[in-house]
């Protein structure tokens, strides 16, 4: 696992919608929509304002959210990649 470090940057997210059970974010440049569900919410609080995490430890953190183990690395990596492509996440 690579040791890339990440932080979240929501300055690009033009619109978001908050419900009691979750948040969706619209990214205007790419036109992508993200659900920041339990997993991403968790990524958020892991990352935002806290010491940067490695991808590896993020996966470990996400495991605590009850995501099935086999799907986990793919979900985390894809979420990170998507967020990174839209510059919502920056590698530090």
């Amino acid at each position, binding site marked *: 696992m690579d040791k890339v470090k990440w932080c979240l940057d929501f300055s690009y997210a033009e619109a978001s*919608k908050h419900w009691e*059970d*979750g948040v*969706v974010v619209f990214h*205007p440049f790419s*036109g992508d*929509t993200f*659900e*920041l*569900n339990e997993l991403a919410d968790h990524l958020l609080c892991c990352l935002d304002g806290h010491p940067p995490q490695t991808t590896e430890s993020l996966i470990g953190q996400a495991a605590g959210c009850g995501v099935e183990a086999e799907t986990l690395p793919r979900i985390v990596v894809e979420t990170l990649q998507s967020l990174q492509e839209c510059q919502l996440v920056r590698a530090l």
Partner: protein
Amino acid sequence: MSNQYLLDANGDNTWQFEFGSFTVALTSSVDNVKKWTPFLYQQFHKAEPRPAFVDFRIQIERPESLRRWVRPQVNFYLDGFAPFKPLPAQQAVPLFEWGLNWCIANQYHRYLHFHAAGVEKNGIMVILPAPPGSGKSTLSAALMQHGWRLFSDEILMVEPTTARAIPIGRPVNLKNESIDLLQKTFPQAELTEKFYDTAKGVVALMKPTAATASRVSETAMPTHIITPRYVPGRTLNVRACRKPAALMALIGNSFNYHILGKSGFDTACRLVDQCDCFTLEYSRFEEVFEFFDGLCEGSQGV
């Protein structure tokens, strides 16, 4: 509906009809199309007099080639342009339906479209978003026969500024086992012959009910988003769906969400906000009807 369909007075095998917001002109000299178009569309407004502006000019014709004598084929033309490969002539009628869906999904972005069925009764308007194969055509055909008004079995259109659903009310595309099942359950349902060996298997088209066809200009405000799944032998299982998950499922089933950009996001959020969101697993129509009719209780006369 008093305005009965008649073969065009000019005898040029062109039918023009109005589906709520758009006008379609279909020209075809293919026997199957000539046979079934009057049957399927007789209840819709015939555009009279011929409108000067036509949204979609469609031709279903045999391509000019030697093959026409060997294995006859038909082509779908939108204003002279053929977007698809030709199909065996026997599939001309479903080809028109699929092709018209393609026209709407690809060229009519004034509305946000979802790959979803939509039904309405007494002001309760349910969006049923689902990918192909989840039984939404079968379910919406059954609900239509049960007295619900069908908005569409395939493309549910929503006006972005008002978030109201726009009906199309076209014939329902039934596949494989569901054809006999529906004919048996609803003897009053009017179906075409079966068209064999299509890309989707055996296909038959169900004529819209009179209530569906005659009210094709009446929009409605969606109240429920229910993602259906047919599971053989399953008793009805309805679960509330998290709003963000409902939104992602809804936009994942949209044809043009990405084209509408921010306005698409706002519209989809508004829909999810104003609707109750469920997932529904079913195997028996009676249980589904009971559930849907329950949604209507208390809204009688609204």
